[in-house]
């Protein structure tokens, strides 16, 4: 039989992972073929497609989707297949289990990657050439930027051709909000804390404004795409690019000899001793609750959450800590991934806000684009994002809003 898997376009890494899993699974189960359908659009278009198909009951047998609060927006308790009775569920890392769960102990998905860090990619040869050190504070980061700009290179690459990438700096800064107030996320969910009234919160928006004002962006920041950005930081045309570590994989095709030239560090705050990384739980593979092949689908999910599944994923990409018991990173993981391990080992990590809170406003990307191109100030963007979040919470019917 054939199972269909709906996949988004735009991020080649994710398509490669899906394909690797499908191929490996088919080898072990020749009677089941999985067809990966990468036509799902990207960003809000994919979102749209998935939500509509789930609502009308026309979803394919499998789908790729985020975990955490974005999963909550799919109304998973109604629309997704509950796999909590499967034996592999206990092999999942507890922090991941939390972000693919629903009400009454329901579990919906198996992880498609390891946990990833959202930080600032940097070009190692450029750092060596200019004698720069990995910054531990924002001021050190700005000094590095000035040095890179003086050397005639782009200090910070921005790629608003793919608007979702504009959010990385603000979202990656969450560790610094968390280190100032460990309970900020729950206060925020209960409408008791806001970005605009939290100093570190406003800072996360104003950081982008400062970079824009300092002229540190690339010339084509308004139209460059994700792949342009990755190539720029790998080639040394740009010194920094705020991005996920795990997305280096497209470079394996476009600039394979430059993969080892990039590293990553967490978005620095003001206190060197309180430096830590914001972690993204991986997307997962889910099945709709009305699937016509529940047994085959459950078999596949079990495969994904096993060592064989991890190996298939590792053949397509390598990301941070893998979240299934028995899966470990290979020794030949690229440098940028090895850079993430100290953060995980020391425990200086926090899941990104979207995994600690069900509320995420849909307009953050557009607001950050406006901060980046100078239309909005950071403080104003923080205020508007708070309003956006308020709208989202009210539409979700959350208590206290």
């Amino acid at each position, binding site marked *: 039989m054939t199972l269909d898997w709906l996949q988004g376009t735009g991020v080649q890494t994710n398509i490669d992972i899906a394909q690797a899993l499908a191929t490996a699974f088919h080898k072990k189960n020749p009677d089941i073929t999985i067809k990966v359908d990468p036509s799902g659009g990207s960003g*809000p*278009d994919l*979102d*749209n497609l998935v*939500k509509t198909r789930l*609502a*009308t009951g026309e979803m394919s047998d499998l789908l790729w989707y985020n975990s955490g609060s974005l999963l909550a*927006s799919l*109304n998973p308790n*109604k629309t997704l297949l509950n796999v909590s009775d499967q034996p592999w569920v206990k092999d999942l890392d507890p922090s991941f289990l939390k972000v693919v769960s629903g009400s009454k102990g329901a579990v919906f998905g198996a992880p498609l990657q390891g946990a990833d860090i959202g930080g600032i990619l940097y070009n190692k040869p450029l750092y060596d050439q200019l004698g720069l050190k990995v910054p531990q504070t924002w001021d050190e980061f700005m000094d590095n930027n000035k040095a890179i700009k003086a050397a005639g290179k782009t200090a910070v690459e921005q790629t*608003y051709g793919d*608007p979702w990438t504009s959010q990385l700096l603000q979202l990656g800064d969450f560790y610094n909000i968390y280190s100032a107030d460990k309970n900020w996320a729950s206060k925020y969910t209960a409408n008791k804390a806001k970005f605009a009234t939290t100093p570190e919160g406003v800072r996360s928006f104003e950081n982008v404004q400062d970079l824009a004002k300092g002229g540190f962006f690339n*010339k*084509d920041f*308004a*139209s460059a795409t994700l792949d342009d950005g990755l190539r720029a930081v790998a080639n040394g045309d740009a010194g920094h690019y705020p991005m996920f570590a795990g997305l280096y994989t497209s470079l394996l095709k476009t600039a394979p000899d430059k993969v080892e030239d990039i590293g990553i560090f967490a978005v620095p705050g003001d206190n060197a001793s309180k430096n830590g990384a914001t972690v993204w739980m991986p997307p997962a593979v889910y099945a709709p609750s009305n699937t016509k092949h529940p047994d085959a689908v459950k078999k596949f999910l079990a495969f994904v959450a096993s060592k064989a599944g991890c190996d298939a994923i590792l053949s397509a990409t390598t990301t941070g800590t893998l979240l299934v018991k028995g899966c470990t990173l290979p020794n030949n993981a690229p440098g940028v991934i090895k850079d993430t391990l100290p953060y995980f080992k020391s425990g200086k990590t926090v899941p990104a806000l979207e995994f600690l809170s069900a509320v995420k406003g*849909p*307009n953050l990307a*557009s*607001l950050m*684009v*406006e901060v980046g*191109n100078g*239309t*909005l100030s950071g403080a104003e963007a923080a205020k*508007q994002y708070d*309003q956006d979040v308020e*709208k*989202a919470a*009210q*539409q979700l*019917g959350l208590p206290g809003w």
Partner: protein
Amino acid sequence: MTTLSQAMRLKSGLASRRSRRSAGSAYPYWFFLPGAVIFSVLFLIPTFASFYFAFTRWDFFTIQFIGWDNFVMFFKDPQLMRGFTNTLIYGVLTSGLKVVLGLALAVLLTSNITARGYLRAVIFFPVLVSTIGVGITFRALLDPFHGLVNKTLAGFGITGPGWLTDPNLALYSIIGVDVWKGVGLATLIYMAGIVAIPRDYYEAASIDGATGWKNFWSITVPLVAPATTTVIILSLIGGLRSFDLIWATTRGGPGFASDVIASVIYKQYQAGYYGLSTAGNVILFVVVTAIVLPLFLWFNRKQTDL
């Protein structure tokens, strides 16, 4: 009055009434039924249904009545005011440009120039092409660094701006593309209006020694007034509701710079706020009607006066 003329008038009155009645009942009323059914099911019923759903919070599973909350939230949206002004700018500018350029092109294409037939086809061709296709094509053409437009300008030593990436320019670039695409239809309507003007007027004017310019302003423009009305109404309605082109070129970006009401509504639909976007659609309906209906009535009154 003689009885004969009275009788004649009565007879002609009867005859005309009879002919009027027979003209009215040429087709029995139930011939309209299929069309009426389709129109009701596809347009009337959903329109009135949306008036109800706008007052609810709904998804595909549940409906919850929440009164005016959706409308309040829609108007509190900071992006909305910009969407409103953008929509008005878009509607007025595309309409105005199509009127001016359409008439100019129509005058050109009804005169005796070479390759007239070919030029007419070329001007009308963009109307037939898919709007999304046009949007995607122009998105590539107007890319600030790799697009053909800026590369050509660079050949002349001019650094082209970020047509679709400069927040101050994006909306106007899209207006330009919209006019390029739609002016053919306006030209066509105007051409029909111009060729319907009797030659006698121009002959009489040339006897009086009128120049081409005077001809244009005193004869052509007043006598194509019905075409002008049609072009303004049609392009205004289309412009105020415009969505496809904007979405295909910039998705309302950069940021919110080229958002119009229709794309604001679509973004809310994307976010899953179905009740909110229904309310937005109701608001759009009211706004377009409020602008176009008085305009339409005013034009009609002017026409009957004429």
